[in-house]
């Protein structure tokens, strides 16, 4: 899995398809965390929403780089679809982790306050959002959808529904963060449902892609 992750990181790096999403996210973060007087938790709610979009973009971009025939060559070395999809998930998760650390560090420097509780909530929120973005992207990616137009439509619709609609995934957490409501329950809900969504998405996509191959 480490070798696959290294390969996927190299693929993503060479392709430069990460640049638009990462630049957009960094621009968002630079605007959000520019005011030292702003309360930090609502800002984490907004950048967390941005993280869902970034991780979704990175997953779709990564799985689109290899031509389907070349993917079969990689599969002949990796031997299992689950390893292939797992490698892609870990690769994007590494990127999410890096962006989360950048966001946390940036917010700490700009706001000039060390708030361990808020930092912890921000860290967990961003990671949960990243996992959910990967979970949304896997079934919309080239693994299952052959045409990029349908991929974009499917991912956009799902992202809008998941972020804005009042369904008990990450929406209650993001709303609680931005409106200063109690967080404990919705944080646990957000983390649990994000992990569950990723596991379900990973297992379903690995199974379907293997059966369709």
């Amino acid at each position, binding site marked *: 899995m480490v*070798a*696959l992750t*290294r*390969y996927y990181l*190299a*693929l993503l790096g*060479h*392709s430069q398809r990460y640049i638009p999403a990462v630049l957009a996210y960094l621009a968002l973060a630079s605007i959000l965390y520019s005011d030292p007087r702003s309360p930090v938790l609502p800002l984490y709610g907004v950048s967390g929403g941005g993280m869902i979009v970034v991780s979704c973009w990175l997953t779709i971009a990564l799985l689109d*780089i*290899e*031509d389907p*025939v*070349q993917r*079969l*060559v*990689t*599969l*002949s*070395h*990796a*031997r299992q679809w689950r390893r292939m999809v797992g490698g892609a998930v870990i690769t994007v998760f590494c990127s999410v982790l890096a962006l989360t650390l950048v966001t946390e560090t940036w917010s700490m420097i700009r706001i000039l306050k060390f708030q361990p509780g808020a930092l912890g909530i921000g860290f967990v929120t961003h990671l949960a959002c990243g996992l959910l973005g990967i979970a949304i992207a896997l079934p919309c990616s080239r693994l299952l959808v052959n045409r990029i137009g349908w991929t974009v439509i499917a991912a956009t619709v799902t992202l809008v529904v998941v972020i804005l609609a009042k369904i008990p995934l990450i929406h209650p957490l993001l709303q609680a963060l931005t409106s200063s409501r109690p967080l404990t329950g919705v944080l646990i809900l957000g983390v649990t449902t994000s992990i569950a969504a990723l596991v379900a998405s990973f297992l379903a996509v690995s199974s379907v892609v*293997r*059966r*369709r*191959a």
Partner: protein
Amino acid sequence: MSLLRLAGVGKRYGKGEFVLEEVDLAVEPGRVLGILGANGSGKSTLLRIMARVSTASAGTLHGSPTIGYLPDRFPAGQRMGARAYLKHMARIGGLDDLSMIDPLLERLALVGGPTAPLRTLSKGNAQKVGLAQAVMARPELLILDEPWSGLDVSTHAILGELVAETRERGASVVFTDHRPQVVHDQADDVHLMENGRLTAEITEPATRIVLHGNGTDWSDEPGVRHVHAEGTRVVLTVDLSTVDAVLLRALKDGWSVREVAPWSP
């Protein structure tokens, strides 16, 4: 003991027609097996199933040798260099010793050298990288889909050497091609793939007869192995012993004989 044995293997995509049906095949150690067939006959599908990158819809596969797989085209569209790509593939396959990569690329005379980005390579040079990734781990079973296509003449000889070396170390090779001469030159055993079915090896020479006309149902004619019709042009593959009888009937039925030539399976 076979390296890999296929029993009743079939393949269909979704609810469509079977593109591969009832394939029984055993790959013995140290043998080179050639599969001869026209484009679209199901050769690539069969090889993908043997390479375990595609799942059979019916039947079973027994045996799990280490496999090197080269698809019929190697679509190298990445900015990554050839050497870096091969190192990644070797690591993914669990190899620790990567010292074979540079000598292999040198032997294959990769134009642009080992650091050449994959996307800048010509079709033939990309196919060399594809070949390198398939053979570098010295697999027990080497599966090559139309490997001679796109390679220059000097690389044909190197590919022949690689196939021979694989056989000498007791590993097996399965390859496909649509040219009878290529298959017979390289393979120990030849199988024919036709309309998704793997037919028994036929070693007896035959004759190819090209006719122009219409009216006769040649599929029931004794000695006619295969009929291929394109409008008023019909190509028959006929047993050597029945050529005269088939030609006589063709002339009696008003067909024009355009070509009679030897054909080897």
